[in-house]
């Protein structure tokens, strides 16, 4: 889960949680007192005669050693060794009741049967082992009209403790049904219905948590909480079930183990809640409690079993239960996080009630109230569920926050990319412009510039004939036109480049009187053909044609073009006197032509055509 750096105490939250806990506690105690209040305006029986005998019928009033006891009568305190005994109470009526009456027994351990004047009016269940277990539920027996007669009536109560338990009989009440029954029902709701509801809630929450865990396996918190709830539900079953379906030994094993394992689950849950990883500690705990469980279950002798279970097992479980409480409390003090405080507050009633039960089982507290721990399930469930909800709420917030930051980061990233892209585009554009500028500068320098410098030099020399002058200036202008033409969008169409070249050279060709055979057909387009290469091609061809006109003394000039799948070629052939010897070639600018061809990635070949010369320029279709 998320890590929480040193959080300050949030006093409003502390106050709120403490107030809610206090109010719930007070309301709970108030309800308990209201529901368990003894009835008024009825006959409350506070003393009886007691005889520890195992007869099935009420013993004769004169037989044996009846002794007077006060109710509540706690056999453990009164050193009653037997598990079974009889009570006898005398009821005197001057006017016998003429309507339905009832006998109300709020607390008995474990089972009771009632007789009026020797007639059985009901019992709490089986008397043979396993004895019906009524120590956690009130009993009510109707006394039909006519059972109570004029004068002295005898009420006999047969009480039997379940195995390992000490007999106990609280005060009993006799009175009119319409007065007594509601009091019984009120107490029944507290002792039975409330616990049933709590147990059902525990099971329900456990199922929900397991469902949650099944979709979020990486988070064990929900699973451990579900196990806490299930262990507790098992504990509550012990309180609710009257007639156990299995042997006493099995049942009591399960009942005590549920207490111990409840504490274990609570420890693990607390570790997960606090994000503590103590695998060695947890392993030892598991191993220890498992060994203890086996040992406890292996004890055959009932007396030893209950002694060990009550004295050691329950004590150990209780002490183990203190550990998570201490952890949560210290976490609360350390971080000030209100979710830990809620957990602590939810745990306090559990500690108090289970402490009471522990003391009661060991005889330190009289069993007037019976077991109480089952009631604290309400606060624990509520508190821990709130904690888990806070957890999930925070997790959802955190993930939403993460999404938001992620989104804003993505947006920012997008903006950065866009601006980078724009910068790049600008740079590229500037680069293209710079390249183009440089190319034009170079072209001017190579062509027009050179011609003009040469013309300037000539102008300083008075002997130069005007025709030379005109020629030079004409060349300068011609070259400028080539540069301009090369900037045209030719779309890589070499045929139209040849067309442009012919248009440019038309004047010189006409003047020379040479016959031109123009054999230019359709040529495949070369889209990569930029202005630079167009210009180089035009210059090479212009130079070649000029050479023919000037030096070849030819009658015919043939310009031919063609293509294969790899390249386009242009041929310039004449029928003149052919190429001069190597030494005399320098004036023909051949070296310059080859240089240009290389620079533009073209292949230039010049050869004898006898008669004349043939120049072939090859332009690759897919220059790599």
């Amino acid at each position: 889960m998320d890590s929480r750096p040193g959080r300050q105490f949030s006093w409003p939250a502390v106050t709120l949680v403490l107030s809610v806990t206090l109010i719930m506690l007070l309301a709970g105690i108030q309800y308990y007192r209201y529901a368990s209040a003894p009835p008024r305006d009825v006959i409350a029986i506070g003393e009886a005669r007691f005889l520890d005998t195992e007869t099935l019928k009420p013993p004769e009033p004169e037989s044996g050693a009846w002794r007077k006891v006060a109710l509540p009568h706690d056999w453990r305190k009164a050193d009653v060794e037997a598990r079974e005994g009889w009570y006898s109470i005398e009821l005197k009526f001057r006017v016998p009741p003429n309507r339905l009456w009832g006998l109300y027994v709020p607390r008995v351990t474990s089972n009771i049967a009632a007789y009026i004047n020797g007639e059985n009016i009901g019992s709490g269940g089986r008397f043979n082992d396993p004895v019906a277990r009524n120590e956690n539920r009130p009993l009510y027996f109707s006394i039909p009209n006519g059972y109570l007669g004029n004068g002295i009536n005898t009420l006999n109560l047969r009480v039997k403790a379940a195995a390992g338990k000490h007999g106990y009989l609280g005060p009993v009440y006799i009175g009119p049904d319409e007065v007594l029954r509601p009091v019984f029902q009120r107490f029944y709701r507290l002792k039975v219905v409330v616990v049933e509801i709590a147990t059902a809630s525990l099971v329900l929450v456990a199922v929900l948590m397991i469902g949650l865990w099944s979709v979020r396996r990486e988070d064990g918190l929900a699973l451990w909480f579900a196990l806490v709830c299930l262990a507790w539900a098992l504990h509550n079953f012990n309180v609710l079930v009257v007639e156990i379906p299995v042997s006493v030994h099995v049942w009591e094993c399960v009942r005590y183990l549920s207490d111990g394992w409840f504490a274990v689950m609570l420890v693990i849950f607390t570790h997960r809640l606090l994000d503590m990883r103590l695998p060695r500690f947890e392993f030892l705990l598991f191993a220890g409690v498992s060994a203890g469980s086996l040992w406890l279950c292996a004890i055959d002798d009932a007396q030893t079993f209950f002694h060990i279970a009550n004295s050691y097992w329950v004590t150990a479980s209780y002490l183990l239960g203190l550990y998570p409480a201490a952890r949560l409390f210290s976490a609360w003090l350390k971080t000030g996080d209100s979710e830990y405080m809620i957990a602590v507050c939810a745990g306090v009633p559990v500690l108090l009630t289970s402490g009471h039960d522990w003391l009661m089982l060991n005889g330190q507290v009289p069993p007037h109230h019976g077991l109480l721990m089952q009631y604290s399930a309400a606060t624990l469930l509520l508190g821990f569920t709130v904690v888990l909800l806070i957890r999930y709420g925070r997790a959802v917030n955190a993930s939403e926050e993460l999404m938001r930051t992620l989104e804003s980061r993505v947006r920012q990233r997008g903006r950065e990319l866009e601006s980078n892209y724009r910068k790049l585009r600008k740079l590229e554009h500037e680069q293209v412009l710079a390249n183009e500028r440089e190319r034009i500068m170079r072209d001017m320098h190579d062509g027009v510039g050179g011609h003009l410098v040469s013309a300037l030099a000539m102008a300083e020399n008075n002997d130069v004939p005007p025709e030379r002058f005109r020629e030079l200036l004409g060349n300068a202008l011609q070259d400028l036109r080539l540069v301009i033409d090369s900037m045209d969008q030719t779309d890589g169409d070499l045929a139209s480049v040849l067309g442009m070249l012919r248009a440019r050279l038309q004047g010189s060709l006409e003047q020379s009187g040479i016959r031109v055979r123009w054999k230019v057909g359709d040529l495949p387009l070369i889209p990569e053909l930029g202005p630079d290469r167009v210009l180089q091609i035009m210059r090479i061809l212009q130079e070649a044609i000029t050479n023919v006109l000037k030096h070849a003394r030819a009658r015919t000039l043939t310009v031919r073009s063609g293509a294969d799948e790899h390249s386009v070629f242009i041929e310039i052939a004449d029928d003149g006197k052919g190429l001069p010897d190597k030494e005399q070639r320098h004036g023909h600018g051949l070296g310059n032509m080859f240089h240009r061809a290389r620079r533009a990635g073209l292949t230039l070949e010049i050869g004898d055509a006898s008669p004349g010369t043939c120049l072939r320029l090859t332009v690759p279709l897919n220059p790599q």
Partner: protein
Amino acid sequence: MSTVLLVEDDDNTRERLARIIEATEGLSLFGAVATVTEARALLEKGAPDVLLTDLGLPDGNGIELIRRVRQGDRRSEAMVISVFGDERHVIAALEAGAAGYILKDGTTEHIGKSLLQLVAGGSPVSAPIARHLLKRLHPEPDAASASREEPILSDREVDVLTAVAKGFTYNEIAEMLSISFHTVSSHVKHIYRKLEVRSRSEAVYEAVNLGLIRMDD
């Protein structure tokens, strides 16, 4: 005898061209001026057969004059004087109604021939201009437009322009297509007219759209 109005602000060039016109048989000078204003004044008085004008003039652009003579009653022919004969400078003039250009440094013979060709009902055209005309009036057939639109140029006109763009001369084209030189030349003039009409109708269309012209008056 066909009359030529020459508009050129460079004195040397104007004098040279005037000499060439005077020297060419069948041509005479209607006037030789250096500015748009002067040319307009002359055009008030009458109309020449041919307007030969530079584009960049001190007080305006030669294109104004081309438009004026093309839209006048005489429908004089127009031709542009260009230093480079490059597409960028010449096309606007062709769209305004000029039918070809001459280079400022062209030979006497060539300039005379071009002007005579024009008055004889033909037009000169260069390879780069032919290529532009093809692009403009005969775009590559693409699925959307070609099927619907009536082709502007006839097949023969396309043949002529394509050949010019590849560098063939009128004579060579005439031979290839088995037609006369004159027919080739007049094909080219027709093409110029189509460019002019198309440009004007596009301009009108745009002007109507912009609300500059009302069609009902």
